[in-house]
């Protein structure tokens, strides 16, 4: 997976602006000083010029919802990338949890180092909480709920019921 990721960067020749800079150029979001070197480059680079054409056309087709269907199998596979990644994460968070419990247990079995093991358990526990998918999801969900409630309140204020 890692190899594929790095290789994707090789498609562009050395010295080509990255896709984010070209997209900003297309959107007219670059300052005058940033535009000139990109203009110079695009004018002489067939691949970047092709990227400008395709980027413009693709954006338009996307906004007009005028694109041919993709296929369900490749969509399923692409969605699966996140699941593959989360399996590794689960193992990692499991390790943090085990280490937390071990440090906590040791703080009682070795009273001489009680404070040290307790601090270690706290640090490892914090790491476990911050890496845990379900806890993070819960935080995002609560944040989304809070945002929806705020939006509802603003809507009610703008158009109060008679």
């Amino acid at each position, binding site marked *: 997976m890692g190899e594929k990721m790095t290789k*994707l960067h090789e498609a*562009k020749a050395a010295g080509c602006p990255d896709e984010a800079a070209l997209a900003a150029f297309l959107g007219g979001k670059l300052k005058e000083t940033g535009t000139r070197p990109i203009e110079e480059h695009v004018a002489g680079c067939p691949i970047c010029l*092709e990227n400008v054409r395709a*980027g413009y056309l693709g954006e338009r087709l996307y906004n007009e919802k005028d*694109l041919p269907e993709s296929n369900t199998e490749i*969509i399923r596979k692409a969605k699966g990338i996140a699941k593959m990644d989360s399996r590794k994460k689960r193992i990692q968070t499991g390790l943090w949890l085990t280490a937390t419990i071990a440090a906590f247990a040791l703080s009682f079995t070795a009273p001489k180092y009680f404070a040290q093991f307790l601090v270690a358990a706290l640090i490892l526990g914090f790491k476990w909480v911050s890496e845990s998918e379900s806890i993070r999801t819960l935080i995002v*969900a609560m944040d989304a709920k809070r945002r929806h409630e705020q939006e509802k309140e603003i809507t009610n204020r703008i158009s109060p019921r008679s």
Partner: protein
Amino acid sequence: MDSSDLVKPSAGELIQGCIKKDKRAWEIFVERYSKVIYWAIRDRLKRFGYNFEDEDINDIHQDVFIALWAGNKLAQLKDSEKVAGWLVMIAGNAAIDYFRRTKRQSPPNSISIYEEIYKNGDGEARTLEEVLPSKAAGPDREAQLGEAREVLKSAIGSLKPKERIAVKLNLLHGMKHGEIADALKLPVNTVSTTIARAKKYLKEKLEGNRLL
């Protein structure tokens, strides 16, 4: 988190969700942008004249999404409103790299790209031969076209960068004046004047070399 929490999230919210490795956001992101990525891969392979099968498109599609999720490439995006155009460029470059890596095929080089791209073009684009037909026929035609290409290359090279982009997008990529103006954020009149002036200049150069 339930998917109803993310009903029609904005592109910015989705991207932020994916960067934070939210799986629901990722699923919606894949559903939303798979089509444009699929289109971009096919478009690039067709225009660059690669021989490809559906299997190649599927592999490139997966490579792109791996780079976006595992490579955290989405964090590089500066303007989330232009995400579709950005993804098209990422997918196009990934397609070139895939053919270079798996089939040892390079993209067309800078000089022959005109002929290489447009011999399998989409019908709207034209070759240099079509843009500036030679009067000569038979064996002389090839020699004259070669000379015309050289003259054009040097004449186009002497234009200002923005003019060069506009002229190439129009003459070689078949884009209309309005589309170029929209893409380069220029007034249509400016683009039309620039292209007309550049065409006149190129014609004079070719006439000066007795190629027209």
